[in-house]
């Protein structure tokens, strides 16, 4: 490679230098076929970064006390020095907005540009989950619409009313996503166009469902005995469409929370991949620039110092250990895939016949585009990496007074560890599986939900509180049932807590 005159490596950044580095990084990114949305890079201060933190990554957030709480928490821990702020935040939008902190040095800014503006950005644009669940071009508009709508509601109906409704929605936010079917994309124009007609139409539908005038057609009644006909996992959607007494504006709030939840859903499922992909590319791009002679040793030392901090994985007995570091796992997996493609060993050929020796760039792009954490790990975690990480599997059965080592990083354990680690990132195992099984349309209008435990893990005590929120939205009796060890349904929580029978059973 021809050596070129290195870029200025003075640690103070200027906008001119940012432009220079950015254009070099863009050139290399294109060389590696990274397809991105247009970047909008915003330089912000630490205070603004804390604001961005508080709104959990939404560039425009509606007003709610929970964001105030997050802000105060962030401010406190930051001011006491317990926590450093992230170097960047990147938003899945088109153009892709990235925030750079003003106190970063030049090397850090370059790292962040490569990481966020080309790594994360290309992931947002290429990964199938983001493609099918989010619409990057309309999210800013939608959030703007949501903020304005909620502000209008506060104006019309009072802050307290809106707050109570949002609290209830937030409690059920994790259950506002269609897990089993592909959603419609959210689009601003569509929202605005449909919102008005939806208001009246929805209400009429709900009224139809709940009307009390006796129906002459008796067969019709029978058909309605079980409603919904199939269990519903999207609780917020069910509420939005069917809650009997909600006002139209409340339904719209439910919808907004639901849509935002859906927007964040892919991010939850691709943490390892997304961070790993971004880390891989900032590492690869900056090393490429170094090989070309565009950046100096001084620059690289600072960059590598930060890079190694980010992708460090403390061991299980380290005081710094807090689970597997998604940056470390993801970064090493992508590096490992490249290694398998370029320099496969016999073991790799046996485990990964289809990718060993293939074009590494094609394989990497394929992996990024078509997987989520769970499937990515079960597909690409290699024995070598398991040995490097010294992974071991602990099986903790509450009925035993010991914990058993289920598998370690050896020949007989690889498959099991890979399977278990993959399960560990399976959202449907991590989040409580709760479905609406019955709404008593013709009777007392009570709503029944069923909790299906994963590996006999019970719901945490917060369920009673959540049920209160659900009751607020549904406004008739709400109960949560679970099958006990004898296969009999028991009520584990209900609201209001009138019936003693349920109470007794729950406490047994």
């Amino acid at each position, binding site marked *: 490679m021809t050596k070129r005159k290195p870029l200025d490596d003075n640690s103070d950044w200027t906008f001119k230098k940012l432009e220079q580095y950015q254009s070099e990084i863009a050139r290399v990114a294109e060389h590696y076929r990274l397809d991105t949305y247009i970047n909008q890079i915003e330089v912000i201060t630490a205070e603004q970064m804390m604001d961005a933190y508080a709104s959990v990554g939404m560039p425009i957030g509606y007003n709610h006390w929970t964001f*105030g709480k997050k802000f105060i928490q962030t401010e406190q821990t930051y001011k006491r020095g317990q926590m450093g702020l992230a170097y960047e935040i990147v938003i899945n939008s088109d153009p892709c907005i990235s925030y750079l902190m003003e106190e970063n040095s030049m090397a850090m800014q370059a790292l962040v540009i490569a990481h966020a503006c080309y790594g994360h950005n290309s992931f947002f644009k290429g990964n199938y989950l983001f493609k099918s669940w989010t619409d990057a071009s309309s999210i800013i508009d939608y959030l703007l619409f949501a903020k304005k709508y909620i502000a209008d509601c506060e104006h019309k109906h009072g*802050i307290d009313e809106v707050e109570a409704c949002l609290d209830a929605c937030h409690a059920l936010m994790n259950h506002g996503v269609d897990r089993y079917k592909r959603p419609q994309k959210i689009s601003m124009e569509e929202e605005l166009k449909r919102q008005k007609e939806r208001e009246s139409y929805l209400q009429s539908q709900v009224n139809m469902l709940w009307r009390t005038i006796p129906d002459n057609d008796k067969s019709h009644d029978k058909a309605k005995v079980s409603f919904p006909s199939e269990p519903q996992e999207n609780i917020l959607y069910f509420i939005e469409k069917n809650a009997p007494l909600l006002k139209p504006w409340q339904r719209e709030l439910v919808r907004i929370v639901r849509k935002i939840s859906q927007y964040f859903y892919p991010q939850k499922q691709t943490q390892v991949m997304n961070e790993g992909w971004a880390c891989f590319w900032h590492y690869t791009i900056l090393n490429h620039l170094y090989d070309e002679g565009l950046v100096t040793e001084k620059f690289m030392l600072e960059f590598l110092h930060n890079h190694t901090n980010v992708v460090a994985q403390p061991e299980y007995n380290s005081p710094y250990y807090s689970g597997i570091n998604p940056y470390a796992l993801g970064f090493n997996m992508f590096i490992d895939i490249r290694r398998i493609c370029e320099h496969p060993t016999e073991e790799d050929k046996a485990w990964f016949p289809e990718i060993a020796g293939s074009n590494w760039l094609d394989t990497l792009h394929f992996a990024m585009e078509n997987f989520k954490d769970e499937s990515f790990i079960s597909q690409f975690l290699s024995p070598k990496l398991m040995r490097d990480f010294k992974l071991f599997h602990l099986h903790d059965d509450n009925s035993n007074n010991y914990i*058993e080592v*289920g598998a370690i990083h050896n020949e007989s354990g690889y498959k099991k560890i890979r399977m278990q680690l993959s399960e560990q990132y399976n959202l449907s195992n991590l989040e*409580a599986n709760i479905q609406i099984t019955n709404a008593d349309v013709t009777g007392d209008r009570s709503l029944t939900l069923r909790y299906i435990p994963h590996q*006999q893990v019970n719901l945490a005590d917060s369920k009673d509180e959540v049920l209160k929120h659900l009751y607020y939205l549904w406004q008739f009796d709400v109960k949560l049932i679970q099958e006990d060890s004898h296969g009999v349904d028991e009520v584990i929580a209900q609201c209001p807590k009138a019936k003693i029978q349920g109470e007794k059973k729950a406490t047994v």
Partner: protein
Amino acid sequence: MANFIDRRLNSKNKSTVNRQRFIRRYKSQIKKSVADAVNKRGVTDVTSGESITITKKDLGEPVFHQGNGGIKDRVHPGNDQFSTGDRIARPPQQQGQGGGPGDASNSGDGSDDFVFSISKDEYLNLLFEDLELPNLEKNQLDKLIDYKTVRAGYCADGVPSNIDIVKSLQGSIARRIAMTADKRRQLKELEAELTQLEQAPHDNVQAKITLNKAIKDIKEQINKVPFIDSFDLRYRNYAKQPVPTSKAVMFCLMDVSGSMDQATKDIAKRFYILLYLFLSRTYKTIDVVYIRHHTQAKEVDEHEFFYSQETGGTIASSALELMINIIADRYNENEWNIYGAQASDGDNWADDSPHCQNLMRNKILPKTRYFSYIEITQRAHQSLWQQYAQLADGDSSFSIEHIKSVEDIYPVFRSLFKKKIEQAA
């Protein structure tokens, strides 16, 4: 493709609204915390904010999530000793074990409290929400005129310490330019002539000498213009500007006779703190006068007021008389907003009580904005209360309240200053 945007100058307080929402929502808890904090403060400490503690339990945002128990499978890194099938005793508390994505931070069982700071203004607003100073309309009109010295341009004379160097030197430059303009023009002409002569083919020696001399003369004349002249000097000018101010004086009267024990005094102290804080919201400067009395009254400092023990009987009128004298001496009621608070356990020499009522009615109340009397006692009311009660009936600037124990202080204080809606309207 990338666009850079510098957002650093944008407003940074995007979260202010949300912070206010948070305070709004947890007002009741925050208020409790604020009320507790009052007891820890010194009387005149109003400069600081307050740190607020809310238990985490109250702050929780519940979501459905998996609890403990059942079967948990976890993969950890860094195996250094285990083989398949090893059994390990379960650690007593499983903390920090593998928080997978999504399920951290949901568990609301941390016992840590949520502590954060509020500013002084937020603190006082919460503490005195819905309270107002009675008879304030009148006070607003009485705002005093005070004078403040402000810069008012420059003037040509003054004392040396007020010389403004930059302005003076600017003047000097201007003067020198003006005074030498004519000469410099001549100089330029002569110099041009000289260069012409030098370029000329002839050897005009004599003309050159004359010219050179003329040039030298003019240069000397230019140089003779003084660098600085007393004419250049400019002095900073100051003017007195009237500023409306409001000054308040708060009289703390307390019975320190033998019957007042330290606990009772503590209650009184807390009451005075509240009053001070409350007044400090309206008035920038507040004088506090401490008067303690048994059979005789004495003006003392804060420490002595609260902590020295006296014995003997009680003549409350002595304190009132001293207050009247001090007002006459130092606090002209046209200049000061006068507030008074008297604390006592109710004991008073029976014959003295009518005299107290008399003094209060005729000498004190006409001069004060507001006077409150608090009686801190577990026992029945005595003559002083009865006398004052007659007075309080007819006068809105005088009120009496009864405090039995520490818990009563804040409610009593609130009831004293509760916004009177019909008045406010």
